[in-house]
């Protein structure tokens, strides 16, 4: 079932378009990797899909049964200030709030969801710690747990492994893969084409020439060939 379809999107800010004529779609259970150079507009695309900004042209359609708040999100850099007082528990729990219904306070099921996701991300020991005192990898896991509280349907990750060491990077990828196996649709922005090719089933390459298709098609395409040639030289 198609969850998301973008047609002829033109993306950009007041000062002009960055990307034109972008079309792609995501099905339930897909793992889509978005690759492209710095500044090619990946984060802009993600913000547009999330509804944080409007496309200059074209349209984004959500599949049936997918509401605006059914999208979870792991930002590229969270601009959380260094001195922000918030416990891991408070951050994860805040993911259960959504535009769906208004409860002034957290319900029992909200707390249960948060507990489950904290456990799933292996954060039990850090539950009462202050978010600002965690390492980069731990913070990413907290934010992933928060995204999982928001939805079990589709999660957008903007460069989730930036700044993580190789071991933690691998753990993060495995974690994302296991979520995907559980049926969560993943859309991940990455500079790591090797990982994209290994874990994803679809690739969207933006900037310069736009490519959208399966991993197999990507490896056969011009951009993919460039990549495989580089790999072979290693």
């Amino acid at each position: 079932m198609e969850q998301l379809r973008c047609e002829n999107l033109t993306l950009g800010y007041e000062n002009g378009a960055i990307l034109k004529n972008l079309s792609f779609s995501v099905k339930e259970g897909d793992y889509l990797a978005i690759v492209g150079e710095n500044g090619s507009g990946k984060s802009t695309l993600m913000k547009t899909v999330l509804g944080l900004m409007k496309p200059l042209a074209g349209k984004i359609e959500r599949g049936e049964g997918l509401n605006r708040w059914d999208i979870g999100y792991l930002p590229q850099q969270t601009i959380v200030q260094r001195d922000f007082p918030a416990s891991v528990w408070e951050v994860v729990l805040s993911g259960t709030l959504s535009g769906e219904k208004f409860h002034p306070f957290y319900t029992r099921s909200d707390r249960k969801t948060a507990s489950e996701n904290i456990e799933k991300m292996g954060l039990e020991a850090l539950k009462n710690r202050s978010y600002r005192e965690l390492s980069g990898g731990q913070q990413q896991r907290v934010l992933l747990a928060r995204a999982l509280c928001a939805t079990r349907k589709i999660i957008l990750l903007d460069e989730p492994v930036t700044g993580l060491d190789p071991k933690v990077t691998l753990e993060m990828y495995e974690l994302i893969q296991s979520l995907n196996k559980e049926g969560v649709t993943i859309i991940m922005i990455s500079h790591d084409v090797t990982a994209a090719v290994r874990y994803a089933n679809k690739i969207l390459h933006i900037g310069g020439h736009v490519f959208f298709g399966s991993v197999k098609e990507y490896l056969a395409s011009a951009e993919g060939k460039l990549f495989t040639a580089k790999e072979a030289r290693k």
Partner: protein
Amino acid sequence: MTDAFLKLGQYLAFPFVQYALIVGVLIALCSSLLGVTLVLKRFSFIGDGLSHVAFGAMSVAAVVGLTNEMFIVMPVTIVCAVLLLRTGQHAKMKGDASVALISVFALAFGYLLMNLFPTSSNVSADVCGTLFGSTSVLTLTAAEVWVSVGLSVVTVTVFAVFYNRIFAVTFDENFAKATGIRTELYNLIIAVVIAVVIVLAMNLVGSLLISALIIFPALSAMRVFKSFLSVTICSAILSVGTALLGLLASIMFGTPVGPTIVVAQAALFLIFWIVGLVHGGVKQ
């Protein structure tokens, strides 16, 4: 010293002293609840800015000859608060810069108007009152106290009901927006509430004290506590405690109310800062 306490006991029997204590505590409570969010959103000086805006609006009202100046002061202040807080993350100009800009302009404009069209004999006393609070906290009528009580109840209720959303919007506005939380609405609510609190507080305690009530308790609590809830509770307690102490001290020793409270808060901040250093130092 015993004399002072005896004197205090006598004073406490006066209704105007009781009124001052009630209103002072309520203003301290309301401004400290929003203080944490405002400090984190880098709007520490919004108390200063908005009360200067209110002062500007008041001088316009005085010059125009309005009998009830609140009709002009309240809407103007609310509009300014909304505009300032709305600019938020997308702004070309940082929040603190635009607050400073508006603050200085409104103060200058108001003072200029009052000089050009003098309505009272002592203009500089009026300006001084804006900054440090007039003595009006000690000349409250029962009706004014009831208005303060009503508005405080509304403020605390709004804060409690929207507490979780206010946290989400303050912590990560983009995430909140992406999950369908109406971030504009909550920013609007924060802006309106803070404008109301400031207009309420300005006459009584002056903009110096409003800023102190917003900044000091939040910063002190953040030195020691690490979760949003504990910081909020701690800053509310600190704010109410210092307001109460400061009011009593100023009644006992005849010192000006605002500066007494600010000095008490600065002392507390120092203590919390040291505790935070020691505490954090031990943990690492």
